[in-house]
């Protein structure tokens, strides 16, 4: 599917995000097309995780809305929201694995609850998901018994559990070694290509952004608005905005 002509999968319309009186970002308007890799960029603390929380239904907008296939998330009733959430796979910034379950059980839990499959199928699926993120052999480990980078990858495996059509990741490659980070990027692209998933990725790892992004937005904490939008390579070459160029060239451009 050619991303340029694909229908928009997710739309964010004049979204204002706030914690109490503290406005994090205003008037975000974004269209994310089916099958594209969409990256949210910006320095630490500019509101990337907050935007993700609005998209996955953890935080209600101060104004505006989030639409999946034209259907408003925040105007839907509880059943409608649940149905929409089921289509999302989320990987949190800190992993957020369930600490008293083994890695295999972490991946299996959503499958047991929602897939209707038998235990043998679920075991095989959990194994192959963990293998995809390079954790073969660690099925019976508890989250506390593996390293931070491994925890991150296990969280990714859990996000993949239900083969969701939309995957959202909060800084997936932060804290990974370069080889694992590269493999993760390959995996993300592969998931998009072979399973047709739409990917929303929060990242400030430049290498990863250039490797995977079809489209990106740059959040600016000073104006509290989206400062730039487009393909990151084009932005680096073509953007007039010094702040965007600085970010994309690590301050050396």
């Amino acid at each position, binding site marked *: 599917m050619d991303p340029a002509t694909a229908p928009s999968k997710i739309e964010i319309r004049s979204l204002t995000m706030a914690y109490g009186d503290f406005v994090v970002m205003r008037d975000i308007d974004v269209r994310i097309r089916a099958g594209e890799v969409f990256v949210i960029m910006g320095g630490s603390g500019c509101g990337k995780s907050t935007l993700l929380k609005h998209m996955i239904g953890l935080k209600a907008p101060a104004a505006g809305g989030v639409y999946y296939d034209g259907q408003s998330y925040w105007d839907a009733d509880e059943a409608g929201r649940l149905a929409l959430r089921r289509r999302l796979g989320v990987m949190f910034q800190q992993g957020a694995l*369930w*600490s*008293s379950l083994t890695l295999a059980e972490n991946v299996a839990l959503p499958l047991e609850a929602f*897939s209707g*499959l*038998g235990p*043998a*199928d679920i075991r*095989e*699926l959990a*194994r*192959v*998901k963990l*293998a*995809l993120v*390079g*954790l*073969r*052999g*660690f*099925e*019976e*480990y*508890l*989250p*506390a018994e593996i390293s931070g980078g491994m925890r991150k990858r296990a969280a990714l495996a859990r996000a*993949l559990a239900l*083969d969701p059509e939309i995957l959202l990741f909060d800084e997936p490659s932060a804290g990974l070694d370069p080889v694992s980070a590269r*493999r993760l990027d*390959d*995996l993300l692209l*592969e*998931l998009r*290509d*072979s*399973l047709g998933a739409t990917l929303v990725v929060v990242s400030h790892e430049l290498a990863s952004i250039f490797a995977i992004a079809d489209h990106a937005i740059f959040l600016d904490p000073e104006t509290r608005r989206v400062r730039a939008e487009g393909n990151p390579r084009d932005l680096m070459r073509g953007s007039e905005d010094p702040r965007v160029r600085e970010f994309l060239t690590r301050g050396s451009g």
Partner: protein
Amino acid sequence: MHPSARLEPKVEVSRPTADRVRVCLAGDWRRAGVPSLADVETLLRRDDGRPRVIEFDTRELRAWDSGVLAFAARCEELGKEHGVEVRLGTLPEGLQRLLRLARAVPEAREARRGSRRPGLVARVGEAAQATGGFVLDFAAFLGESLQSLGRLVRGRSAMRWGDALHVMQTTGPQALGIVALINFLVGLILAFVGAVQLARFGATMYVADLVAVATVREMGCLMTGIILCGRTGAAFAAQLGTMRVNEEVDALATFGFPPVDFLVLPRLLGLGLMMPLLCVFADLIAIGGGFVVATGLLDLSSADYVQRTLAAITLESFLLGVFKGGVFGLLVALVGCWRGLRCGNTAAAVGQATTSAVVIGITGIIAADGVFAVVTKVLEI
């Protein structure tokens, strides 16, 4: 795409020639689970001339998800096990690439474990060992805390007094409400029960003595200790346990702050100092409860009640009650901190730490009270 147009997912395993196994996947395999491996396995296990090749036919495969991926991965493993070549070339491109990714990191074989559930005998043995270790461990923790106290006395402690003050505030003033409520009710109950018994001997006037002595020597400090165990001991265990899970305790240790100085000592001092004060407060309130019953329901005048109460309380029993309160406070703080610092690193472990802090704390308070009863009897206090 439309659900009604969905093609039934099918898997057929055949053996077109003696040395080939053909797996034919057809239809829409999305959200349809993992294709069954049973037929492939049987064919591989058969003795009449093993097949040498497994091949796939996916011309009729309309859509797939990770169920088919898991199937292909298992076929590959089976092939390896049985020394059979698995031809993946006819699988969809994307599936082949995902398989390569899944294979890219070799399995950490030395890391692999089976499910861990030791047998009954092993578990009983472990439990017995654990109980012994438990007592020793508490002794060790007590020792550490005393050392830490020693450092404080010598002015070489990392403890921050602000922490101790904060503990005092949350364990003292903020507990006044619940301490007052419970002790008032206990005072009422003591007076009621006492009045019924004493009335049989026409000695209702002694209700004041009974409430005063029972409260000041026993009930005041005991009830307050138990309340604080549930309220504060549990909170200590949960706080320190969560810090343990988040590696905050390790962070303290790496900066060279002894965690005991930093975390345990302020709680010990705070609760140790607050508990005697709370006990005095509890005594007053419980006597007030008795007063309400005696003057309201029995025919005792308020002047009589006050006078009898004052006559009944000796300085020794008052001080004994307050002292016991202090000991119970230290016990609650010690047990709460001990369970918290020994917490495992999961959310469930924090729950266990909290539970055991309360259970051990209350048991400890009652046991200590028993010891006090014997000692004071011997010393005739």
